[in-house]
């Protein structure tokens, strides 16, 4: 038995085998990119004279507009050149080529060119699409932040959906009751704030139930999440059909209106897109920055990540992993509850049955697509929101694209990402595993 330790020759052979594999993958990638470039150039031939008209509002929604006119063919030529160049660079430089960074340029070009080809010359207003993207992304990213904080602390959280649903219900009922109690002359903002607070509190309670089941009773965290998702549908449907349906005054909350940020909403082009959204958008942006800072730059964040990666090591140096997890779950409840409240207070104007409609799972997708990082997760939510928003635009303009295609995008992207087709992401190591504090 001399072959127990590999000799030097064996190791080098293995490394070069892996290297060959990577080189082959790089070559295939290069050829594929180059071929796609040729395909894009091919598309351009027939579309050279088709106009592509995009416009953006300069000062405010519905005000002056700034029109960009080009042709679909030119867009395809640009896309083809960039894609083809990426392929050639990949072939020349081999494995060292940072092709993932190039995707940031290549993918948007493909999206814009495809969009303009689908529109066939119909003018499209991008301010609406981009503003819609942001407002659709807000609840998804808040839900994703809830997922990130709990998974980073070591508790797998597939219950975002349930928490959002309960938050939506609580917000609507509490805001409506507040309006009834305060009377119609009262400031609706107070009622809205009461509704949001109620959503946050209900989110905390549901989150604590999840934490309690998985920490105290060591229930498998996936099962605990399923309990909450099924239970949330059951209890909110029950309340809606038994109580809210007959007493509609309990389900007519004041709605959250969009809020223009003073001064900066006057910025040309950017103002109408970024700073004329609902308060939820600003809240999301603030939370994103604060949360990313807390997670990566503070002692709290380090401890949180430690209890999600290696709780035994964290426990050994005296960190109270259990307390950290409970606290993380409380914050997760606040985020998910508020995300839910935006559905009933900002989007729909009342609570409807099953109104979360899978957004909690899209948030989970954003957690994974965003590699458990708040800023990337917001980016992921933007991508999903953009898909939704483009679909709305296309259906308004009467372009016949099956909505199911764009609707399934977040889910397919997530599968591709977890399967590591476009680079593997890795979640917190101890997420989903129970921890015994000695």
């Amino acid at each position, binding site marked *: 038995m001399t072959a127990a330790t590999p000799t030097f020759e064996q190791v080098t052979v293995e490394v070069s085998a892996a290297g060959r594999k990577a080189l082959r993958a790089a070559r295939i990638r290069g050829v594929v990119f180059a071929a796609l470039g040729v395909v894009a150039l091919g598309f351009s031939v027939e579309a050279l004279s088709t106009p592509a008209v995009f416009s953006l509002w300069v000062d405010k929604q519905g005000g002056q507009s700034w029109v960009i006119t080009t042709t679909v063919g030119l867009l395809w030529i640009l896309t083809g050149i960039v894609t083809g160049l990426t392929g050639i660079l990949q072939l020349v430089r081999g494995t060292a080529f940072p092709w993932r960074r190039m995707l940031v340029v290549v993918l948007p070009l493909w999206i814009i060119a495809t969009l303009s080809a689908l529109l066939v010359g119909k003018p499209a207003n991008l301010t609406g699409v981009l503003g819609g993207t942001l407002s659709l992304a807000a609840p998804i990213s808040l839900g994703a932040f809830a997922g990130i904080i709990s998974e980073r602390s070591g508790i797998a959280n*597939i219950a975002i959906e349930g928490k959002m649903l309960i938050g939506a219900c609580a917000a609507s009922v509490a805001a409506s009751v507040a309006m009834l109690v305060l009377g119609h002359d009262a400031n609706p903002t107070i009622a809205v704030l009461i509704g949001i607070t109620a959503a946050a509190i209900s989110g905390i309670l549901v989150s604590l139930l999840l934490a309690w*089941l998985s920490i*105290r*009773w*060591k*229930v*498998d965290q*996936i*099962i*605990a999440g*399923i*309990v*909450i*998702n*099924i*239970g949330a*549908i*059951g*209890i909110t*449907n*029950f*309340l809606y*059909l*038994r*109580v809210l349906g007959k*007493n509609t005054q309990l389900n007519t909350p004041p709605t959250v209106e969009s809020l223009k940020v003073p001064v900066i909403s006057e910025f040309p082009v950017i103002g109408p897109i970024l700073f004329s959204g609902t308060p939820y958008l600003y809240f999301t942006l603030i939370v994103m920055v604060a949360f990313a800072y807390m997670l990566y730059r503070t002692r709290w964040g380090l401890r949180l990540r430690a209890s999600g990666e290696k709780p035994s090591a964290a426990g050994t140096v005296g960190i109270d992993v259990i307390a950290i997890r409970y606290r993380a779950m409380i914050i997760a409840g606040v985020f998910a509850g508020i995300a839910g409240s935006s559905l009933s207070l900002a989007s729909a104007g009342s609570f409807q049955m099953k109104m979360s409609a*899978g957004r909690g*799972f899209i948030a*989970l*997708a954003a957690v*994974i697509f965003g590699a458990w990082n708040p800023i990337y997760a917001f980016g992921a939510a933007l991508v999903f929101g953009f898909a939704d928003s483009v679909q709305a635009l296309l259906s308004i303009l009467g372009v016949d694209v*099956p909505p*199911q*295609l764009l*609707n*399934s995008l*977040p*889910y*397919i992207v*997530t*599968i591709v990402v*977890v*399967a*590591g*087709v476009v680079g*593997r992401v890795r979640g917190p190591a101890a997420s*989903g595993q*129970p921890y015994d504090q000695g």
Partner: protein
Amino acid sequence: MRRVGRALRPAVIPILAVITAFIVGSFFILITDFDNLSKLGKDPVGAITGALGTIGTAYYSMLIGALGDPAKLGAAISNPTPRAMAAAIRPITETLVASTPLIFAGLATAISFRSGVFNIGVEGQFVLGAFGATVAAILLKDQPMPLILLVSTIAGILTGAAWGWIPGFLKARTGAHEVITTIMLNYVAAQIVLFGLRSDLLRKEGSSEPISKVLSDFVRIPLIFNLPAIRLHWGFVVALLMAVVVSWFLFKTTKGYELRAAGFNLNAARYAGMSAGGAIVLAMTLSGALAGLGGSMEVLGTVPQMSNDISSGYGFNAIALALLAGNRPAGIVAASLLFGALRTGGGLMQVKTGIPLDLLFFIQALVIMFVAAPGLIRVLYRFDRTRGPGAEKVVEGGAA
């Protein structure tokens, strides 16, 4: 006597879990009973008895709705016309009809749990199985009926199996967690069905709803009783057969042993020379195939046509069933009959008392919770305190 006691021992926690869940459910009926509670100030006794009466009526009508009305049963015995017979046995046959998809979905979930993979995707596999069966049936609609029945059942099994194979393959090959991939695939499946049902090939003529052509016009699983309004078909018997087959497969064959070994300890199975990846793929594919079979039985036997809400949460109920039954096939059948009875009886409850059927989803969630946290039940009923929380592992193997 002791043997009986030992045989019933695994049923103690599930039974107490169900009872506790119903007690909590009653509490929610009570606090939302505004008609009676509004009288609390004037007539507290009347208000409380009235509210308790609502709960009593609710659960009693659930029982009658699920098993049958004794009065109609008596009428059928004294005057056995087909009409009276049908009226008497309709509730119980409806319970069996409702439990059929649950048995398939429950078996599908149990086979994956036993193998240590968490198939949350039974819902999608069920729906897509039904969709595959529908496509095959519509393509073959001019053929003789037995042929349509056979081919579309096989098509349903294959589509379900393929939809289960994807996450299994991804897990075995790339390590992609099956919980995430199956959740996402459930949504993709729903979108595929919506997309397909808008095509001219499948859509019912002149309908804007996502429903298919009426399949029962040209293909239907034969009924067991030829009585008016009785929908019980041979799919139920197939479900029972499948329980036997799954039980035999898991406990009497080498492959089944390998799956269970992988479920107990993937590494140990790997060191014993079994293919861990193979076990995962096989478990997911079989699970999907069972779900797909369930879907085809539903669309070919129970409902007249395919629609986007063909599964009213069967895949999620199945998780409750598998936990409740401890992943034992016989237990799945028993638990499915119970859940089928709840669904059918819940319908009458809704009609009689206005209490929404959706309460059952909440009760189900509570059942899963109590079964998954047996320590909670032990503390509530103060027995067996020697064992700590979590002494019993509910899902054998757990999430790998």
